[in-house]
């Protein structure tokens, strides 16, 4: 029976989603030599970049393959026991810092299960996971980009996947309705979009499998071309964030000292700090850009900062919503403004940048998910499916990737056992469990938060108001003190007098509305 196809399952992409699918399939009893996982990076991991934290202990479920991952995996850097949220303006900075002894197993409890968030470097982590997959008997192929999916009875020489990923010309993407496919016969397109998938095509060679798992990550060409994303739901400026970051080397001792981290011992990993920041650094830059490029007048970049400690480096970067980028501002210059803010500059002083990079982060929310997660003989998992959650307090993608991979592994094994890997059967298992999982429940519960987060106030006057108010409340000048509330309203009055945008944006009505929205975080 087994020999009808080259493999039982072929997984495209060896990131967390793909690896979790593979390990789960092993756990379900699928033989390692019936699973092929391919990745376009060589070595595996070399295409990946993160500006995030791995939350939770999803990897514990794969202990039999990964062993003591938190001590042994080189890309799992520090256990976060220390979290900061910050408000930065050009002149002021306010940080709220939580230091939780119980988080790292060094304080209130030594229970490892309390260690639940990790700074990661994906090039290293993915390479290590690939090694573990090989050790477990899975076929792992690095440096292999998949051009097409194999569809029964289709001549794969007759089209290029790129032919199917042009947005319709007049649609302006955001509100677009469909992909433009004008150079392929309708019958062929129909087959590409709805035929039964049974393998992969690389450089003209076909490898067949019962099920294909698309775990390509963000910006997935295959999910577009094979119509998991109808254009209505497709990746567009509205839902894509660009992360730009540097990895800066400081040395382990300096990091332990500067960020007050536990150095780690034989049993416990070193602890570290994670910081996320609201930025109002870009007002003057934007105003100047508007003068030069009036087309995008009124647009402030919606930009957040992040800063994480790794073992001997720090990850320092920004993430910007592509729709909010005005003409005239380069994304890397937005990063520079963040890096140069005095409070951040102090943290990286004496460090040396050793890597720079950029990566997209899909933040679709429920309303722009792929319109389907399965086809006959295929499923899509992780970032490729846009399974990223953000509410301003947490951004989670990597644990969602791992979790969706597990669900896919379970579902695929069950469907194969029943001899039915149709979209219907995969939907009844994979899609159903995905929608019942915490991934979807989180997305649903915090959907209103997106509205709050996208409010321009949070990228203009809010961080400035917070910073200025804190500045005055904390300062002792030996004079009579006034209440914080009075200071706040004093600062508000000054800021409103400064310019028209503030006057309008900081009206009592708007501030109240914003506060009400903020409760949903």
């Amino acid at each position, binding site marked *: 029976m087994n020999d009808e196809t080259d493999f039982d399952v072929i997984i495209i992409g060896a990131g967390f989603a793909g690896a979790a699918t593979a390990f789960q399939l092993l756990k379900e009893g699928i033989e390692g030599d019936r699973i092929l996982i391919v990745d376009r990076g060589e070595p595996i991991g070399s295409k990946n970049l993160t500006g995030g934290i791995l939350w939770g202990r999803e990897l514990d479920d794969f202990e039999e393959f990964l062993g003591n991952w938190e001590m042994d995996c080189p890309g799992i850097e520090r256990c976060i026991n220390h979290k900061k949220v910050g408000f930065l303006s050009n002149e002021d900075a306010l940080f709220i810092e939580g230091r939780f002894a119980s988080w790292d197993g060094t304080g209130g409890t030594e229970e490892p299960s309390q260690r639940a968030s990790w700074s990661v470097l994906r090039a290293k982590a993915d390479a290590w996971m690939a090694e573990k997959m090989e050790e477990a008997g899975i076929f792992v192929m690095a440096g292999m980009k998949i051009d097409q999916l194999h569809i029964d009875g289709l001549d794969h020489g007759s089209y290029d996947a790129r032919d199917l990923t042009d947005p319709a010309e007049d649609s302006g993407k955001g509100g677009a309705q469909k992909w433009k496919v004008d150079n392929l016969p309708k019958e062929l397109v129909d087959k590409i979009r709805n035929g039964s998938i049974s393998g992969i095509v690389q450089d003209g060679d076909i490898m067949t499998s019962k099920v294909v798992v698309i775990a390509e990550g963000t910006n997935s060409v295959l999910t577009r071309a094979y119509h998991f994303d109808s254009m209505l739901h497709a990746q567009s400026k509205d839902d894509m964030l660009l992360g730009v970051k540097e990895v800066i080397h400081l040395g382990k001792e300096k990091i332990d000292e500067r960020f007050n981290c536990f150095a780690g011992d034989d049993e416990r990993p070193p602890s570290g700090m994670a910081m996320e920041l609201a930025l109002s*650094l870009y007002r003057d830059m934007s105003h100047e850009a508007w003068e030069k490029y009036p087309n995008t007048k009124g647009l402030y970049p919606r930009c957040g900062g992040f800063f994480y400690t790794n073992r001997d480096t720090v990850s320092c970067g920004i993430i910007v919503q592509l729709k909010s980028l005005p003409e005239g501002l380069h994304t890397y210059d937005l990063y520079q403004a963040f890096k140069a803010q005095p409070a951040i500059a102090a943290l990286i002083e004496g460090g040396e*940048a050793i890597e720079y990079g950029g990566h997209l982060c899909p933040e679709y929310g429920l309303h722009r998910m792929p319109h389907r997660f399965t086809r006959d003989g295929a499923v899509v998992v992780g970032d490729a499916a846009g399974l990223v959650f953000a509410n301003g307090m947490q951004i989670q993608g990597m644990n969602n990737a791992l979790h969706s991979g597990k669900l896919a592994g379970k579902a695929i094994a069950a469907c194969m056992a029943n001899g039915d890997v149709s979209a219907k059967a995969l939907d009844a298992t994979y899609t159903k469990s995905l929608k019942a999982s915490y991934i979807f429940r989180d997305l649903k519960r915090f959907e209103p938060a997106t509205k709050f987060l996208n409010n321009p106030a949070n990228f203009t006057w809010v961080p400035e108001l917070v910073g200025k108010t804190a500045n005055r409340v904390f300062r002792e000048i030996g004079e009579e003190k006034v209440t914080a509330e009075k200071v706040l309203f004093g600062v508000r009055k000054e800021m409103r007098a400064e310019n028209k945008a503030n006057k309008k944006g900081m009206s009592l009505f708007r501030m109240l509305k914003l506060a009400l929205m903020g409760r949903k975080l």
Partner: protein
Amino acid sequence: MSESIKLGLFTYDIKNGLGLIGYNVDEHEHAHIIVETSKCNDCSHMMCVWGCPAQCYNFRDQGLKEMKFQYEDCVECGTCYIMCDQGAVSWNHPRGGFGITYSQG
């Protein structure tokens, strides 16, 4: 407002940044992104230029009369594909084993 926050004073040394990344550049005939630069002449916004974190797109802001695209420094993020609404960018991943090689990630 202090002078230091003016535009132009926050200029990331992008050439230096790109120099920190490893690449295994493929030959020209296998360039993974193809830009029909003639379509760029009518574009009013050049959002690819502003969005691209690797300065692969150079145009009027650099005093050029036509779009100049180079794939060699591409970090394969996909921003240009998302930003372009002129249908000028044909986007794909590089061939297996080619393109960017992050060592940290």
